[in-house]
Every structure is written in C-alpha cells, then in structure tokens.
C-alpha cells in the first residue's frame, strides 16, 4: 500500500551506492544484505570497532550502516576514529536501541541520521540514498528527541540564531515526529522536498555543533551524562 512512495528510490542506471555494514551480529548483517543488496552495493562488513575502522578506511564507501552497540567502544568510537573521513563517508546509525543517550550520542559524533532496526527494507534503502546525497535522515523518534532537547523556553541569549531551531525547522520536525514522510511534509507545507531536506540538515548541524547549553542541561536533567 505504500508503493506510491518508491519514487525517491535510486533511478535505474545510476551507479549503486557503496555501503559498508557494521554490526556485531552476523545474522543481522546477512539479513540486511539480503534486504538491500539489490539496490545498493555492499562493499564490506565489520563486526567490531577495530575492523570497522579498517574496512571503512580501506574501502571508502559512500554510506556506513553503523550499529550503536559494538564490542570495542560502540558506534561513537568508530565515528571518533573515522573523524577525518567524515564529510566524504556518511554514517547512518542503525540500532535496536532508541534510547535518548544512544541517539544523541551518535548524532553528535557525526552520524548523518538514525534509524531503528524495525525499519523496513524499502525505507532503509531510501534512507541510505538520502544520506548518500548528504541529507539527514530522522526517524520520528529522533525528531521527538530533538524537539525535546530544544524545547526549553528560557534559553540563554548567546548564539541565539545558531542554537535555536527556526519556526519552520520546528514545524518540519513536528511533522516527522507525527509520522509524515518527507514528501508528505513538502506537500503539506507547500515547499519542495529539497527544502524539507535542507531544514532537516540544518537541525542536524545545530544538534552536532551548537546547542551546548540546552543539550547539556537536557542530558543532565535526564541523568544521561
């Protein structure tokens, strides 16, 4: 019933996205490879932090599907060690955990998106495509966390334009949290899909770089740090 949304899947004929799979469960890697192997090119697999760094450095894929919980320090550690590669190689976190500290942790580490393992194959392919093009991918839950993190009303006036989400960005996030696809958001707000993606990327940038005060306080309130 969702077939009307497959138009953003890679167009036939274009080179397939090169992907590395990082997960410590072989069964899961096999499953993901079976689901997405048609649409993307899986160029490597890794099952812990050290092998992930080695494989990513060697193969230079476009997108890395990164598990959050890994032996040897977790996905955040992989991001830290691959920091020099980050603009060229995009990381998409794929985890069974939707705990706030995991999500915010890898996003701040430099991942371009976060999806949970309950995602369907089609949606995962679309997410890989979007991340590969440099856009951010937010699951509704991640959008909820971000809204929560930025929701504080008594904001310190420093860096205001950098720290605060704009009204539009907030609107876009709220629609994502409500379960809308990017295309539906675009139709609803009467903007292009590209603009939606720009807003989402802006949110991601703010999340990674700037909102020190709010995020720290938010995390402290929840006893995450």
């Amino acid at each position, binding site marked *: 019933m969702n077939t009307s949304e497959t138009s953003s899947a890679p167009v036939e004929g274009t080179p397939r996205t090169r992907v590395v799979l990082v997960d410590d469960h072989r069964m899961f890697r096999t499953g993901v490879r079976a689901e997405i192997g048609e649409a993307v090119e899986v160029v490597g697999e890794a099952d812990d932090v050290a092998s992930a760094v080695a494989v990513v450095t060697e193969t230079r894929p476009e997108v890395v599907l990164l598990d959050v919980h890994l032996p040897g320090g977790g996905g955040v550690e992989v991001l830290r060690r691959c920091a020099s590669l980050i603009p060229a190689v995009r990381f998409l976190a794929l985890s069974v955990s*939707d*705990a706030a500290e995991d999500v915010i942790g890898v996003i701040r580490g430099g991942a371009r998106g976060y999806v949970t393992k309950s995602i369907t194959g089609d949606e995962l392919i679309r997410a890989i495509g979007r991340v590969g093009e440099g856009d951010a991918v937010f699951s*509704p839950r991640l959008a*909820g966390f971000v809204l*929560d993190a930025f*929701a504080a009303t008594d904001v310190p006036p420093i860096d205001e334009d950098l720290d605060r989400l704009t009204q539009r960005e907030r609107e876009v996030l709220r629609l994502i*949290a409500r*379960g*809308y696809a990017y295309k539906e958001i675009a139709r609803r707000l009467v903007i292009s899909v590209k603009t939606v993606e720009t807003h989402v990327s802006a949110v991601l940038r703010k999340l990674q770089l700037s909102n020190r005060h709010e995020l720290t306080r938010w995390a402290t309130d929840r006893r995450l740090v």
Partner: protein
Amino acid sequence: MTAVYPPPAAPNRPVHPTPKLRRAASHRFAGGVARGLAEHLGVEVVVLRVAFVALAFFAGLGVVLYAAFWIFVPQSVGTAAPPSRERGRERHQALALIIVLIAATMLTGLGTDTDTGSGDWLWPLLVAGPGVILLWRQADESQRQRWFSLDGRSRVAGWLRALIGATLVVAGLIFFSLGRGGIGDALAAMRGAGLLLVGLLVIFGPYLLRQTRELGAERRARIRAQERAEVAAHVHDSVLHTLTLIQRQVEDPREVARLARAQERELRAWLYRPDGEEPDRTFAAALRGVAAEVEDAHGVSIEIVCVGDCPVDDRLSALIAAAREAMVNAAKYAGGAAISVFGEADEDTVTVFVRDRGPGFDPDAVPADRLGVRESVLGRMRRNGGAANIRSEPGEGTEVELEMRRADAGRSAVGRTNT
C-alpha cells in the same frame, strides 16, 4: 471447680520491650548518647544530661563516660525527625548544660587548682573538647551520608565543620604544651609530635592505603555482582518466560506477535527509561500506557513519540481517553498499517496526533448512529474544553488531532476571557 484465669496483664506495663541501647540518630546535640540512653532506660533526657555534667566534676568521669558511650554504642538508623519546636527546646537545654559545665569548671578548676598544676589541662580541654565533638559528629553515619551527598552546600558545610574541629583540637594541644613550659618548649613538643606523626604515616601509610583500596575494590565488585544478579533475574522472569511461551504457541502467529511486542516494550522500558519516571502519573507515561493497551488488545504496532511532559489532571485524562479511542479506531480500520502517535506537552497546551496509513475515510459520510468518533473523540474533547480535528482522505490515511489547554495555563486564560 472454679476455673482459674490468669491475671490480666498489668495495664500500665509497656507492651513493647525496652528498646535496645542505641545512640539516637535524631534529637541529638553531641552523638545522641543521652537521648539513646534515655530511651533505653525510660528516663527523661534532662536527668541523664544533668547526671553527665555532674559526673564531669569527679575527675572528669562524666566526660569519659560520655565519650565511651559515644564510641561503643552503635547509632540507630532512620528514626523520624522530631518536630522542630521540640528540637529547639532540646538544643537550648543542651546548650544551657554546656554553659553550666564551662562556668562550673572555670569557677572550681581555676579557683582551686592553679597552684597544684592540674588546672593546666582544663583550658586546653575546654578548647579541644568542642573540636573533638565536632569531628566525631562528622564521622557519625547519618552525618557522613550528608557529607558525601551531591548537595554542594552541605558538603562545603561539612568540610568547614571538619576544619573548625581540627583547628580547635590543634589549638587545644598547643595550649596544653604552652601550659607545660615556655613557647620554646611548646614548639619543640609540637615538632616532636609532628615528626612522630610523619614516622607513623611512613610506616603504616602503605598498609592503610592498601586497606582503603581493597575496600573500594571489594565494594565495586559487590555492586557489580548485585547489578548482574538483578539483570539476570529480570531477564529470567520476563524474557525467558516469554520466549518459552512463544515456543509453545508457534501455531498462532498473532499471539506470538503480541507476546513479542509486549515483551519488547517491557524490556525497553526497563532498559532505557530513567528511574525517576512514575508510571501513569504523567501525561507521557499515561499515553504510552494507553498505546501499549491498544497494541496488546488489537495486535497492531504503534510507534509513539512524546515530547515534554506534565502531570495528568481531569482534562488531560479526557484527552488521553479520546486519544485511546482514536488509536482503537486506527487499529480497527487501518488494516494493520503502521500507526504513529505523537504527544506534545508545552507550557500551555497539550496536543496529541494519532496517524495511520490505512485506507482513510470521509468523516462527513460517517452515519449518525456511529458513536465512536462522534462521541468518544469529538464530543469528549468538546465537553472538556478541548478541540479535535480529523483529517482523512481516501488513500492518504487518517490523522486525528487532539488539543487541550493545560489547566494551570488555562486558568489565567479563562480569567482573561471572563473579564
């Protein structure tokens, strides 16, 4: 023959046995010795306090006794704090007794003993005594807990008190050595004592250090083992049982899915949710609870996102009930498609969106006798001062939007509109 009844128990006899000898945790001025003894013996505290002070004049017997009790009698834990008026009175009483003690020693001690030389220790004792009391109070368990608590202010106060105590003790010692001779003698004595202290530290230091380290390591190991045991118990109680149930019901995929979903939700809540969150008392928790019920009852999967939180009042209960109805409708008519629920609580309004990807329907075409949407969702929201909006287009799914002003914010708004 007449039956002989045992004599009735004496009514004025206390039913409970005498409490064990423990130092009081509350109601205390210095160590809680007098209060503890008073409770043990069933006498008034004042009597004991006066007795201790009186005994102090027999070569300091009272002080020695008090110190002995303080050292050897364990402290009781967790007695309720007394009302503050009572505490104030106690404090005054204790202070008065201490002043009496000091005044009396000054009169008797100074008046009679200066020429014999035994008066020399009285002044140092008067200075060092409060210092010792301060330090020992600090080491008492209840105090120590406060000392190491995360509250910055009480920790600073603790260190300050320890510093004052130590200063008083050292000052007392200096007074003592000064009384024995000139300032040169005093300095020599202090130097000697210092050297001795350093020597002792060098000899016993490593041993002490090792002891502390081992103690810390042992404590960590014990905590780790406890946590492990708790995780194991939880996994055994819930996850393994569910897996067993699933193995037994392989023929019923619906039931298997229901069990798996319920277990996943439960495990997630246990693993990821902060401890402080009280179930069903807040908006977010209540909404999650309702979603879980609908998931279980209808065998659907609901993705729920909550932003912000607030306590639940009557109007929010109505909102949650309406949201539940919307979820049930989605579960019934969306044909198993994904259902997303988004709840947001900001300062003055609470909104809930329930969205499904089902076939959708025309809200105006719903027959008048169908009460689900009309009464349980729209009507309920209207009656409680909220608003509901249903968007549905064939092929696009359905979204129910529920909005309610928060009572605390609503009050001022109502006031404004009325005037």
